């Protein structure tokens, strides 16, 4: 499958700071990719380069097979920039119509497309208002709406749920979930649960360098790890009884949180080992707070970034 994004030796400096450092990434079409990394890792800079807002210092970047500045990609990319509101003093509706017209819709079809987007993002009550009069969450929804106009092939979302209340964040996650099979998504977020739920792949960058690009299932070893959070620390006998189960390779306990443990196993039928462990915990009278297949994404990201 053709790549929608290809970065080769991409480097960008701001004064003495290397925002991106020799970055090589290839993202296939129809992928949902989570872009994660600590603050200042270069995520927003990468987004800005993919959209042509910034020019690469060194290296090359192609989006949908063309340079980001090329007229051929215009209207095929949608972006939700981080904390940038729409233009002041112009109603949301007027701006959405402008964006649709620039994407090739005529006056009539532009209004139809805006009506579709209004329904999708549920911003019917906001469209007559000026962006500066909207709350943070409402602004986020309106900027998300503009990113979805014209069903772009690639949608870049920079911190789509940051600063939102749980209900608003959940609404946005649901919209992304609904659309994830129709578009290619790249989502930059610090919320790793969000990434885990809506993305297939993850790109971890730190200090402008690529740390890891893999499928999320591979990264968290979903098929050979169980992450368990108990309501009390597991005692030695319980750990021993789990350890001697067939297929269990190792048990990793967390020194900082003795209630948490990871069970690493090698089994063709992971469900069976899962039931056996649940049975042992029940017999020992230990309550279960969380029980997840795969290691915690947060732990894996922290581990990989801290190795840098």
């Amino acid at each position: 499958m053709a790549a929608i994004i290809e970065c080769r030796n991409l480097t960008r400096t701001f004064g003495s700071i290397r925002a991106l450092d020799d970055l090589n990434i290839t993202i296939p079409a129809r992928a949902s990719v989570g872009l994660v990394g600590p603050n200042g890792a270069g995520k927003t800079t990468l987004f800005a380069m993919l959209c042509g807002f910034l020019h690469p210092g060194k290296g090359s970047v192609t989006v949908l097979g063309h340079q980001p500045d090329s007229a051929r990609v215009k209207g095929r990319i949608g972006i939700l920039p981080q904390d940038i509101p729409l233009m002041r003093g112009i109603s949301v509706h007027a701006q959405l119509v402008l964006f649709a017209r620039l994407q090739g819709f005529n006056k009539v079809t532009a209004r139809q497309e805006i009506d579709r987007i209004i329904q999708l993002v549920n911003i019917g009550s906001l469209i007559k208002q000026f962006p500066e009069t909207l709350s943070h969450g409402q602004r986020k929804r309106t900027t998300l709406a503009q990113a979805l106009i014209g069903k772009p092939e690639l949608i870049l979302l920079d911190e789509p749920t940051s600063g939102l209340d749980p209900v608003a964040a959940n609404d946005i996650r649901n919209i992304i979930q609904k659309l994830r099979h129709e578009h290619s998504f790249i989502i930059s977020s610090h919320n790793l649960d969000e990434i885990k739920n809506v993305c297939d792949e993850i790109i971890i960058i730190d200090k402008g360098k690529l740390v890891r690009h893999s499928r999320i299932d591979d990264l968290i070893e979903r098929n050979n790890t169980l992450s368990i959070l108990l309501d009390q620390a597991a005692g030695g006998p319980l750990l021993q009884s789990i350890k001697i189960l067939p297929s269990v390779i190792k048990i990793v306990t967390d020194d900082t949180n003795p209630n948490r443990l990871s069970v690493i196993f090698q089994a063709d039928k992971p469900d069976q080992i899962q039931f056996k462990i649940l049975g042992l915990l029940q017999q020992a009278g230990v309550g279960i707070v969380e029980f997840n297949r795969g290691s915690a994404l947060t732990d894996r990201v922290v581990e990989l970034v801290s190795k840098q």
Partner: protein
Amino acid sequence: MNWKRIIILACFDLRHSLFRLKGLVFLIPFLFFWYLNLKFLYERGGEALVSPESIVILSWLYKPEIAQILLILYPPTLSVFLIMVLASTPAFAMLSGNDQLAGDSGRQTFRFLLTRCTRSEIFAGRFLSHYILISLSTLLIAAMATAISLHNDQHSTTAIINYAGHVSLLVLIYILPFVAYMSVISALMSSALSALLMAVSVYIMLVILGNYLEYKSGVSIELLPGGLKEYLFDLNPHDLYIGVGGLLAFTMIYICIGWLVFKKRNI
């Protein structure tokens, strides 16, 4: 470049400029300035403009023969209008064009446009909308000045209409390099106010530099389009061609510089 997108951008910007600070900061002083001057021309124009005193005053600013041609040969109301437009265009172009690109670059709202159109389309769209705004406003005033001229001046209607067309055309060309100058400044800066201050500073600096170089070399050196004003008063066609050609050359130079700056800048 996709002209359809350029026209959509220009129309949108023009329509919204009329009701937003970026347009009002130009329109309010512009209309106030012309209200006062047109009122003066209407009430005290006509014979007063062709008096010897008026010719002497104008001779201080330009050559005596230019003063005579403007106030006697041509309808004086329109000549005074032309002189005033040429004198005030730099200031009004700065007020009108300071937010061509600067504000939206600084606030990063161009990011919403840049996924839909190219930088060259944004640049051209904004240039066009600002040029149309100041041109249409000036043409409106030109129409009023023509009406006053028809009422006050002793020339034939045909002569006044012909001269009004000539003056309007000159004004439209004269505005071009100033809007282009503002596109350079606006492409460099990140807010409308800083663009306005920078435009004034650079303009004053170039005036001083031009005068200094002229003084040193003894040759007339025009660093700004304003220096070509005198060529536009139709003494002979050759001068007019030099004036118009110079204005178009300034426009091209400024547009090229502005485009290079905007092409390279981070948005």
